[in-house]
Structure formats: C-alpha cells, structure tokens
C-alpha cells in the first residue's frame, strides 16, 4: 500500500519537477492554420494564399503570427496565449483566423519571403509594399493583422511585448490605435 503510494507520488513529483516543454507555436486551442516554409535553405517562403482564401470564404480577418522555434520571446507570448486561452479564444475565433508561420531565428530578413498568390517578396520589400514601418528590422515574434484582401488593418508594434496582458491583447483584436 505504502509502496504504491510512494510510486504514485514519485511519478507525480517527476511530472511536476521536470519543466514542461511546450511545443513551439500557437496553442491548439486557437485552431491555428500552421504554415511551414518552403524553399529552404536558399529561402524560407511562407505562402499566405490559402489563409487568405479561407478568410474570404469565412469573411474573417487574418491574425498572422511569425514565431521561431528557438526564440524565447515567442515561447513567452505562446505561453501567455495558452494560459489565457479560455478568455481569449472566443474573441479570436469570432473575427480572426490565426495563421502560425513557423520559422527560426536563423531566418533573417533576406531569407524570409512572403507569398500572396503569384507574388513572392522578401521581408523588407513585403513590408514596404504594405506600408509597414517594421521594414527596417525583422523581429521575432511578429504579428500582422490583415483583412481578407491582405490589406493591413493597423500598424503593429515590433514584437509582442506590448500586448501580453488580456486587456491589451483584446485592444489589438479590436484594432484600437
């Protein structure tokens, strides 16, 4: 009896003691549309065409998240989303399709390409083409908000540090500027 209790307790301890390593990426509760890059290693191209097509069909906006598997700030934002999923998911789901672009810190601005339909542009050119001030520097993680025609809905900040509380995340979803 005591032996069984001990083993159960040991297992429980080990589960708690070993830090949980969350899989990189937007938590499943947000039903993200995961986009993997193609064309590596010469280029890492993320194609938004399918996401935009779906956004058109569902009359929704896109919440495009660019994360890197080896980026601590990405893990922090993803953990925030995970911890607050119950509160945030309904707000995301009502208006947005979450798109999760899976990258790496080694993918710099020159290597990162965004494709929409027939047009594929490197990061800086893409940002300039959409009038995004973040053209100057690629920062992980990054978020873009688009309508279903790939028109940016507002200028987003570099990184996610200024919307890692529930009220601030909701400000972003409401497009408060």
């Amino acid at each position: 009896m005591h032996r069984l209790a001990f083993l159960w307790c040991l297992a429980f301890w080990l589960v708690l003691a070993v830090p949980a390593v969350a899989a990189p990426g937007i938590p499943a509760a947000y039903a993200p549309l995961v986009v993997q890059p193609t064309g590596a290693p010469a280029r890492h191209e993320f194609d938004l065409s399918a996401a935009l097509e779906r956004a058109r069909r569902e009359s929704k906006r896109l919440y495009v998240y660019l994360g890197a598997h080896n980026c601590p700030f990405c893990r922090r934002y993803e953990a925030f989303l995970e911890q607050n999923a119950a509160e945030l998911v309904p707000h995301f789901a009502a208006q947005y399709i979450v798109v999760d672009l899976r990258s790496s810190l080694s993918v710099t601005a020159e290597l990162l390409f965004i494709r929409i339909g027939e047009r594929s542009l490197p990061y800086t050119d893409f940002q300039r083409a959409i009038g995004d001030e973040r053209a100057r520097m690629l920062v992980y993680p990054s978020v873009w908000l688009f309508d279903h025609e790939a028109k940016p809905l507002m200028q987003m900040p570099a990184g996610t540090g200024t919307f890692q509380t529930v009220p601030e995340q909701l400000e972003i979803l409401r497009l408060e500027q």
Partner: protein
Amino acid sequence: MRSMNLIGRVLGVGCLALLACAPLAHAAPGGLPAPAAHADSSPEWENLRAKLFPSRAVDSTPGTVQIIAPLRAAYGASVPVKVVSKLPQSAQLYVKRLYLLVDKNPSPVAAVLELTPEVGQADFETRLRVDEYSHVRVVAELSNGQLHMDSRYVKTSGGCSAPPNRDALHLVGKTVLKVREPVAMNQPTPAEVTVLHPNDTGFELNQVTVMYIPPHYVRSIKVSYADRKVFDAELDFSISENPTLRFNFVPHGQGELKAEVEDTKDGRWVGTLALP
C-alpha cells in the same frame, strides 16, 4: 511496510506540498505598467508642470491644440507624433511656444519650439523616442500667455536604448529642406527639415565595444525664410535619429528657406532651399 524510507517520506511531503500549492499557482502578470487613459496625469507630468509652468494654469480642455500619436508604434525609437493647432496663427493671437514632452523619458522635454506668425499654421510633425509606457504631451503657450495641453498614452519601450543606425556617419549634419509644391504665396506652405544625425542618447550600447555611446544630439534647429524667423527649435535626444520636423511657413515672395543646425559637440550646419 509501516516504515516508509526517508526519500519516500520527503517525496510524500513534497507531493502533498505541491498538491496544496498547485491550485494557487498563477502566471506572472507580465510586468507591464498599469493601464492609463490618454488624458491622465502622471507624477512625472506634475513634476514637469511645477518646473516649466510654476503657478500657471494649464488648460487641458480639447479645442486649442491636439497631439496625435499611435497607441503602439512600430518601434519605441521612432514614434510618429503630430501636433495640430486649432488656432489660426495671426499677429493678434498665435501659438508662441510648443513644448513636446515624454513623461517617463530620462530627459522628458523632447522639444521646445519658439514660433512666429510666419508659420501660418502651427502644426508640426516629428518622431520621438519613447523609453517606456508613457504619456506624450504637447503644451501650447499662446501669445496672450495662456497654456493649453493635450496628451496621448503610448505603449512602447526601449526607445532610448535601441541600437542606433550608424550606416552614414560621414554624412552627419547634412541638412535637407523640402517644400511641397506648388508653393502658394501668402499661404501656409508645408515644408520639412531633416538633419542626418545619430542623435545618440547616451543609453545606447555599442555592440562591438560593449561601451555606451556618449550622448551626441542635435540641440537646435533655427528655420527662417527670406531672413525672417519662422521658428527656433530647442531639441533633446528624445527626438529620434535623423531629426525631422514637418512645419508650415508663409512665403511672401521669392526667398531662401534656411535651417541652421547645432549639435551638442558644437557641430554647425546650414541647409538652404531657394524658392522661385
């Protein structure tokens, strides 16, 4: 059976402790500042007000001056800010001074602009460094002595310590003036002055030497047209690198738009633009 070994007892107690604690575990709140409304005061503003405008009333009723800034900017080192005056600039009553303030910056007085009626319309645009979540304010001092204030709360950080762009140090001081064509005589005419300058804050780290880059920034820009003063700007490192001011001036005839620039290392430069 009765005698659980020491490890077992410790683990057992540990498990119980963890079980007891688990429901109380919460995520860290993220350490972000408490939310603030755009029109709120702050201890820094109260301190600034006492120093800049002792025993003078500062009216924050909307209608005289407005500041436009994003709630979140792309980068803290370059927050676009626009000041809009609702008061026509006439010889009888005009905006005489504009104070641009960033409450929580290490040096909160970003700019003091001394204006004349020659600006025609006292609107200005520039870019500011905002070091942490802070109110950005404009105080307009009218020629009759009244003070009017407007503010916006800006959520960003790291503006004063962001790595500077040091690609074109050989061009430091180059002063460029632009005027929107066509130029209409006797009307407020939009113009822009840009000084290529790193505007070092003193809080930026040289990534190679791991030493802080000493402060070196543009401290004044004096703009005139046909030898008539348009405005004088006293500036600080809270203005972003390559300081740019968009402004208006009223051309009364052919002349030269001139900007005289001085920095904190006594560098002096002049930019000119002849208008037909």
